[in-house]
């Protein structure tokens, strides 16, 4: 496995070493990541992500609160796919405690999670174009995202930091308006996708900026534990929703979108394809949703997972989100370790960035789609 030497070692400290700080306050480090770039001319010799500017002690917090009280926090770890994290955490606890979730709740969970995945990918598309200098696609993407948020808002009451899941189900039943809105959105968004392709994917400048840039090959990706769209862009068809279906994902027909090349363009294509697959899933789920309760009837008042270790993982918009839980049988976890995708992805930067040009930095950094608190936890 290739391990980058720290960039500090790579460079003897002669008077020509030139460091450029990108971030923490930088329009395209998506929050407060700081990249310390070592440059020669326009070429990057080394890159060192400096993290911790967004550290909010999420994991520590879990040790200070009981299981239920940690719930609202899950959606703040990765605020872009908060719903997936939130529901994932519920599922993890349910698995540990062997709570049965009603059918209807499972369907609602899938719909909401996929809608959330759409919002996340849309936001990525927008900000990525912003990184590349295209302002208008950013606003279009945000506009479409607003429509999605309206749908989600109507049932969860929040736009970003959802706390919708409950152990054993979801906090509120959905009504027909919601389902219809979700289905309508699918039809609408398919049309929009074409526009995005015309405006972005086919754009020659965009292609030139992204093709062959920031190549993350399958070996590198697997070595580092890259997951999600970044891994699939390298041609590896891995998706927890298919490989280890959790919830009721095994009931839906959808494809794992992969692309060849592992470059920024491949990642773009994978995300675009995934949006389409999400639409498929939502349509199927809306069509097949049964009636019934949305909360399991017999949920213990105090959540006390059996002593021992538990692990559960879901596919978030960014990749493999795993929760490793150690319980001593009380209602406060001993340790809750979160395995978050962005952390891994950012760790590949010291190998992916060197050799590229300064201008590629933003293209690459943007394409791996990071969320800072998820890195810093």
């Amino acid at each position, binding site marked *: 496995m290739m391990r980058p030497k720290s960039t500090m070692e790579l460079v003897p400290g002669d008077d020509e070493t030139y460091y450029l700080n990108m971030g923490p306050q930088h329009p395209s480090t998506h929050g407060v990541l700081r990249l310390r770039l070592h440059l*020669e001319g326009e070429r990057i010799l080394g890159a060192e992500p400096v993290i911790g500017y967004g550290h909010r002690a999420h994991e520590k917090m879990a040790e200070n609160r009981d299981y239920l009280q940690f719930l609202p926090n899950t959606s703040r770890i990765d605020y872009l796919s908060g719903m997936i994290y939130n529901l994932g955490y519920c599922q993890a606890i349910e698995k540990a405690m062997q709570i049965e979730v009603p059918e209807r709740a499972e369907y609602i969970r899938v719909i909401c999670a996929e809608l959330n995945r759409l919002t996340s990918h849309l936001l990525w598309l927008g900000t990525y174009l912003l990184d590349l200098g295209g302002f208008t696609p950013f606003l279009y993407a945000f506009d479409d995202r607003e429509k999605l948020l309206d749908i989600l808002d109507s049932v969860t009451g929040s736009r970003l930091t959802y706390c919708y899941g409950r152990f054993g189900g979801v906090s509120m039943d959905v009504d027909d308006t919601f389902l219809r809105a979700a289905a309508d959105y699918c039809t609408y968004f398919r049309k929009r996708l074409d526009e995005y392709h015309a405006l972005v994917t086919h754009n020659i400048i965009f292609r030139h900026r992204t093709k062959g840039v920031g190549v993350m090959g399958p070996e590198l990706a697997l070595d580092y534990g890259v997951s999600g769209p970044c891994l699939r862009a390298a041609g590896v068809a891995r998706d927890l929703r298919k490989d280890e279906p959790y919830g009721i994902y095994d009931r839906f027909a959808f494809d794992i979108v992969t692309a060849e090349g592992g470059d920024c363009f491949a990642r773009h294509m994978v995300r675009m394809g995934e949006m389409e697959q999400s639409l498929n899933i939502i349509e199927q789920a809306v069509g097949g949703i049964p009636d019934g309760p949305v909360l399991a009837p017999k949920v213990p008042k105090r959540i006390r997972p059996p002593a021992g270790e538990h692990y559960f993982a879901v596919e978030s918009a960014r990749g493999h989100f795993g929760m490793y839980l150690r319980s001593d049988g009380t209602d406060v976890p001993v340790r809750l370790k979160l395995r978050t995708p962005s952390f891994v992805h950012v760790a590949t930067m010291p190998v992916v960035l060197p050799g590229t040009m300064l201008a590629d930095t933003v293209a690459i950094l943007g394409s791996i789609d990071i969320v800072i608190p998820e890195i810093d936890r």
Partner: protein
Amino acid sequence: MSDPTDYAFFGALLIIGAALGIAPVVAPLFLAPRSTGAKTHDTYECGVDTEGGAWMRFDISYYLFALIFVVFEVDVLYILPVALVFGDGQYAWRDLIELSLFIGILFLAIIYAWRKGVLHWRAA
């Protein structure tokens, strides 16, 4: 020889332009409050302290482009006066040949640079 006053007028406008540029920059000195923060006058670099000087050794490609530019500009500017009289005289064909030769040689320069990969940054 053109009327020098014409150019004097232009020069005056240059100075006026400078004045117009200076005026709005001077006004704030009187009108604006001033900050006295500890780091107000430090280098701006995304909020962290900068390391080392701003000077860097740039890519050689920059220089090569500058160089081709200088030479090209000279060439192109030679064409300008010629363009004014091109084909005027009785030796129109000679003019054509001379000018196309000139442009052809320019072309050679571009082709050479291209072949050498100067025009494609990464190859440098």
